[in-house]
């Protein structure tokens, strides 16, 4: 069976006046229908850009897709012409953005904004569209949906606006829903509501979901599979439980250790990854994480590691997996030393 989504060696770069920003450097993964995938990474890790490419939303110029394929039901999205996108975007693949205030039109009622999606994508009449709009708004838990269709985005709270965005996203029954940090701007109690909502909708509609976040907790609550990105490359990917229980890549190990767990003693120093996130214009030739890595060898600086199978469906991109496995404690003391010499 062909997977719903097959991403192969996608590369995206942006040509800016300061130089070429290598945002995404050859990422590959597959996604089966009905799966939930979490993409975790810090700012600038390329997680959002890789998804914008999936919707043909990379601004060109300055952006350019340097290579690779994104096969959606076997069809390469990167080869689509401008007018071919309309059958895919919104209809097959929908996206929810981080900040619902800036992604909704402030001078248009939310009813009209959602109507527009179904009128354009599904060819509904305006009457049918409004009916559908009320239906989806009710589905995402907006009370008095029919009345609220006539309200403008500023009349909704942050959490409600994100619900409106989700309603718009699901209005055309997409197969794949991409959520790009949809809860980052929201409070935790509201975030919990939105996560439960997406989980419920996914079950009801059988959607495939990609959830992008920097929050390791959100992913743990929501997804079954994750991809950890750093510097535009995949560092580690696989089923969530083994990755959280026994991370293999030094970056994943460091990231998970940086979050204070329930058992941490308050007098202990918190683990941290030294140094700073990479400059995407001057990425190292080898592994993007090498300059901050405690296990760094000469090979890491010279050659980029590929993803190596470390378990069932579990891969990690690191030259020194054996050393890391044998000395997981090294990460702490060594990375601290590395941080001292590199700080600044």
């Amino acid at each position: 069976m062909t997977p719903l989504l097959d991403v192969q060696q996608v590369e995206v770069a942006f040509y800016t006046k300061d130089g070429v920003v290598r945002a995404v450097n050859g990422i590959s993964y597959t996604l089966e229908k009905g799966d939930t995938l979490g993409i975790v990474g810090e700012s600038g890790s390329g997680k959002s850009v890789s998804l914008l490419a999936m919707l043909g939303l990379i601004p060109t110029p300055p952006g350019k897709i340097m290579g690779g394929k994104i096969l959606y039901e076997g069809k390469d999205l990167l080869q689509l012409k401008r007018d071919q996108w309309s059958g895919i975007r919104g209809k097959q693949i929908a996206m929810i953005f981080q900040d619902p205030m800036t992604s909704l039109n402030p001078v248009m009622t939310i009813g009209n904004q959602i109507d527009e999606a179904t009128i354009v994508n599904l060819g509904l009449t305006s009457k049918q569209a409004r009916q559908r709009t009320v239906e989806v708004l009710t589905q995402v838990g907006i009370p008095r949906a029919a009345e609220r269709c006539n309200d403008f985005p500023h009349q909704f709270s942050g959490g409600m606006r994100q619900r409106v965005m989700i309603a718009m996203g699901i209005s055309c029954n997409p197969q794949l829903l991409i959520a790009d940090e949809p809860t980052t701007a929201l409070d935790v109690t509201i975030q919990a509501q939105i996560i439960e909502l997406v989980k419920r909708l996914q079950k009801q509609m059988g959607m495939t979901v990609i959830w992008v976040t920097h929050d390791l907790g959100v992913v743990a609550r929501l997804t079954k599979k994750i991809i950890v990105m750093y510097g535009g490359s995949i560092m580690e990917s696989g089923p969530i439980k083994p990755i959280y229980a026994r991370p293999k890549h030094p970056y994943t190990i460091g990231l998970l250790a940086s979050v204070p767990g329930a058992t941490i003693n308050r007098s202990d120093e918190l683990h941290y990854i030294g140094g700073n996130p990479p400059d995407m214009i001057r990425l190292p030739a080898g592994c993007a994480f090498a300059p901050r890595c405690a296990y760094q060898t000469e090979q890491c600086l010279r050659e980029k590691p590929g993803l190596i199978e470390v378990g069932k469906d579990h891969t990690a991109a690191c030259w020194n997996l054996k050393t890391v496995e044998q000395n997981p404690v090294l990460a702490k003391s060594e990375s601290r030393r590395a941080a001292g010499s590199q700080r600044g």
Partner: protein
Amino acid sequence: MSEREKLVEVRNLKKYFPVKGGLFQRHIGDVKAVDDVSLDIYTGETLGLVGESGCGKSTLGRTILQLIRPSAGSVKFRNQELTAVTGDALRRSRTKMQIIFQNPYSSLNPRQMIERTLTEPMSVHGIYRGTEAKERAAQLLKMVGLETYFLGRFPSEFSGGQRQRIGIARALSVNPEFIVCDEPISSLDVSIQSQIVNLLKRLQKELSLTYLFISHDLSMVRYICDRIAVMYLGKIVEQGETDQICGNPLHPYTQALWSAIPIPDPEVEEGRERIILEGDVPSPINPPNGCRFCTRCPKVMDICRSADPEFKEIENGHKVACHWYTSRP
């Protein structure tokens, strides 16, 4: 407990922001950002202040520092009443109390070299001048883990984590005793957050600082703070030692807040019971009658809608404002 020295004493503090409207911009209501808050901060401790956006936690921090003047109530720092102090005396008090801001991108002047950013507070307060100030600035940079040659650079040349270190150095430049940390890590990447938290903890030990740590990241608060105060709609609803608040949260809001925080462990998440609160935080202009949490509370009783619950000590040092514990039949 009683031997601990109170550094900051807040009593019945209120801050209302007037809302104007209508044809003549008449006063039509108030945003009750901080509404009758009392708390003590002891020397050398870290008090965590948690709550959702709009609950008034930042306003409370700033009102304590007199960056915003309170509408009513009292703030004492080392037994000196601050709300009455003005002019030079107020400026002098600022050398003892400083703030670290949330956003390291907007809180540094982009046109000022780091040296000026760090030496200006010293000269304003007449602590150091000239070469002495420059030496002190260099020393501060080292203290926060940056290189001294950064003095001649501009903020735009630094990453978020480095900027936050500069913000910390600036707060330290006048040798304060008390620092309000207003969400100092929430705009930083995960791998950088722990660096900054370690730095804050180290500085606290070295310089015997007292912190008011404002945050909505409860896992960090649990790790950093000795005591925690939970705020909801302008009021403190629960307060106690970190272990009390985290191990045995009493207020239904604290319980819901705790359960809403995703834990980075899929095994734990799987079996976790969740309290999902309905609805949004009500507007602070027109808060609900009685207990402010009554509109979203899963344990709401009749009395909650009419009477404001008393803030009462339930166990040693652990206080909660909830009828569930005081008025249950």
